[in-house]
């Protein structure tokens, strides 16, 4: 064949893992988070306080739970815009169950069950009927919330039991809330799922080229369906926590959550085109969004300004990773 002196064993990798970690998007997010943390502590004397910091976590935990599953979905090249509407429907169904005398375990099961059912419906429309997910979930966004409005009108459900309220308001230890513990636990599970299992590897393959993934024997539709169900499940879980924290259900509950969850995913370095991203980045992005909104709250910035901020952040973070990658390729 060819000159045998050319024949050498191929190394696993050439680039230094330490260097690529330092230059990564995640380390930039850590710097940004530290910066905002320092700014906040100068901006308000009430910020550096264990209870303030604990309150801060409530600003992002529910949305961040959705962002974990959304990250997987976006990496696979799909998206779910109906997550906030799923919360509304799940919360409404929990309210209905409450009217029939359901106690806490049943309420939780109803919330999560409705979430999974909604996700499965999205997943069926996308993988079974081959419809684009952005169109499907814009449709189901109106559909799910519309059902909540029909059931509730301008009413609201109240009177959730105390043990149920603990899920959204309770503390596991000192200032460490149940919501935060649950989020950290889920973050670890999703990290393992995405970065350490065959399932996660196939998600990346699908996101980079779903045709070639299918040609390589990956069951693309099955995996996408599971991801929609997971996103529904996390939305149902978020519905349980949010309903428990607020103590009531209104049809307008969780409005705008989908944009904040997607902002966290994209700010976390997940490519909006699919195929790239990490759970660590999404967790850091969730903390940053929490820090920023809490900081603005301390400065008494009104809510409407915050939505302007979220919108701008979404645009900036879609542009930033692209600029960052261009810069890194030159470096």
């Amino acid at each position, binding site marked *: *064949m060819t000159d045998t002196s050319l024949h050498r064993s*191929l190394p696993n990798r050439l680039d230094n893992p330490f260097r690529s970690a330092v230059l990564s998007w995640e380390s930039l997010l850590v710097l940004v988070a530290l910066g905002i943390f320092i700014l906040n502590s100068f901006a308000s004397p009430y910020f550096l306080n264990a209870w303030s910091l604990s309150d801060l976590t409530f600003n992002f935990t529910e949305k961040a739970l959705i962002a974990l599953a959304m990250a997987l979905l976006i990496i696979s090249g799909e998206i779910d815009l109906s997550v906030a509407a799923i919360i509304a429907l799940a919360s409404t169904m929990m309210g209905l169950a409450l009217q029939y005398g359901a106690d806490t375990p049943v309420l939780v099961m109803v919330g999560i069950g409705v979430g999974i059912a909604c996700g499965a419906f999205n997943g069926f429309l996308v993988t079974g009927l081959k419809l684009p997910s952005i169109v499907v979930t814009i449709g189901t966004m109106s559909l799910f919330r519309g059902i909540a409005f029909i059931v509730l009108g301008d009413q609201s459900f109240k009177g959730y039991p105390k043990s149920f309220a603990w899920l959204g308001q309770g503390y596991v230890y000192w200032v460490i809330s149940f919501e935060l513990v649950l989020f950290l636990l889920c973050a670890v599970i999703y990290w393992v799922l995405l970065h350490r299992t065959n399932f996660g590897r196939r998600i990346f393959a699908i996101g980079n080229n779903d045709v070639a993934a*299918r040609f390589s024997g990956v069951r693309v539709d099955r995996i996408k369906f599971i991801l929609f169900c997971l996103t529904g499940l996390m939305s149902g879980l978020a519905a349980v926590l949010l309903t428990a924290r607020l103590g009531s259900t209104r049809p307008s509950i969780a409005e705008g959550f989908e944009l904040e969850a997607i902002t966290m995913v994209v700010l976390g370095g997940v490519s909006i085109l699919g195929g790239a991203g990490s759970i660590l980045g999404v967790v850091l992005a969730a903390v940053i969004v929490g820090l920023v909104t809490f900081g603005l709250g301390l400065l008494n910035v009104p809510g409407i300004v915050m939505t302007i901020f979220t919108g701008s952040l979404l645009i900036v973070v879609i542009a930033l990773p692209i600029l960052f990658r261009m810069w890194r390729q030159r470096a």
Partner: protein
Amino acid sequence: MTSGTPTSMTDPILTLRGISKSFPGVRALNDVSLELYAGEVTALIGENGAGKSTLVKVMTGIYQPDAGEIRVAGQVVSLPTAHSASAAGITAIHQETVLFDELTVAENIYLGHAPTNRLGLIDWRKMRTEAQATLDSMAADIDAGIKLKELGIAKKHLVAVARALSIDAQVVIMDEPTAALSQKEIEELYVLIDLLKQDGKAILFISHKFDEIYRIADRFTVFRDGEQVGKGFIRDTSQSQVVQMMVGRSVDHIFPARNAAIGDVVLEAKGLSHPTEFDDVSFAVRKGEILGFYGLVGAGRSEVMQAVFGLTQTSGGTLTLEGRAIAPKSPADAVEAGIVYVPEERGKQGVITGEPIFKNVSLPSLGKTSKSGFLRLAEEFALARTYTERLDLRASSLSQDVSTLSGGNQQKVVIAKWLATLPKVIILDEPTKGIDIGSKAAVHEFMGELVAQGLSVIMVSSELPEVLGMSDRIVVMREGRVIDTLENTDLKPEVLVRLAAGIAEEQAA
């Protein structure tokens, strides 16, 4: 132009001189020349991959030649864009017409050069009446006001011709225009080509069908491996002479000797059918055998293989693997059964660009490299190293992005990926299309090793030397049907070409 007979010594309208065009690893065109004359049809003949499409793209401003010159009516022109080609009077009618379904027929005809009124706005009324006049002059029964999507493919061709007339094109390129037409529609197209000839247009007609070429062409040019190997007047040349020019090449590289012991039937297809693509296809491949599939593009070979691989569903027929009936509903099912497929579209369907070599190789084998669903990177690297080194992959590391590899090395990654699954049958669809000579030889040599180890190989190829050099037996397909299955002993290339193109024996002899 009344004296526009084929023997007239008028100057050509379009002249190409010394055109060369290379892509990384492939020389698509090498110093080719072509003249097109007013009022004449020149047939461009060649096997798949001979460089015909590349030449059309050079002539229509889509590719820029590396060397050579293009003259229109004696003037040297450069064609940096598709628009400049159209401005130079060159237009192309493609196999699948490139027109706009949602626009009206008139808009399609006048897109980019619509008549305008004094305000510079489109004069719709004038556009409509002139479009209708052009269509009527062609005796085309088409209303210029309806949307294009309401027309069938044949009528769309007529619209494309009307467009050529309306931009006053001097050179009309027809790239397999009859591929999707019925016999009656083909007759109508012939009438139209006569009309274009009378109008003094120079026509370049690309076709695989000899009956068509002999019916309407005045001159011909034969391409082989990116070079011009013959030209002349069609009436002075027999079909067998043309076939000889197409295939009569020197053997450009040595194929490995076939000495694998051939055993029992491994995969057998009986009467496989598909609603539109193929009908009643039967074949069997044995252990240690390379079964070649030869035919023209569109003969249905890839479609059959994709059905065997579970990508499309058949409407009838049975598949048997080692005596057991199988019915793969997805590629995942086929891979589990032991059938793998190396697709023709390497970049789109073969490799996952953006991912490193080792992840590409391990993807279908994750079940083996992992432990209870959890990744084990060391196992993945070991697997990838074993199979890529067997194929002599040229890369800097296993973490290199496959998009940075050459076509030949990407193909090695795809093959390595499948070998790692320890398949029983490996289907290779145009395995060496567009890859460099060195990688080609490596792939061929490796196919020999595969069958020596007892695998069964099905190779779809449109390259005659490859089919003849590698196959133990050859299945010839035409128009979705198996025409013949031949033992590859002292087989003449002319026989395959005749069977694939449907030329009768006595006519060609």
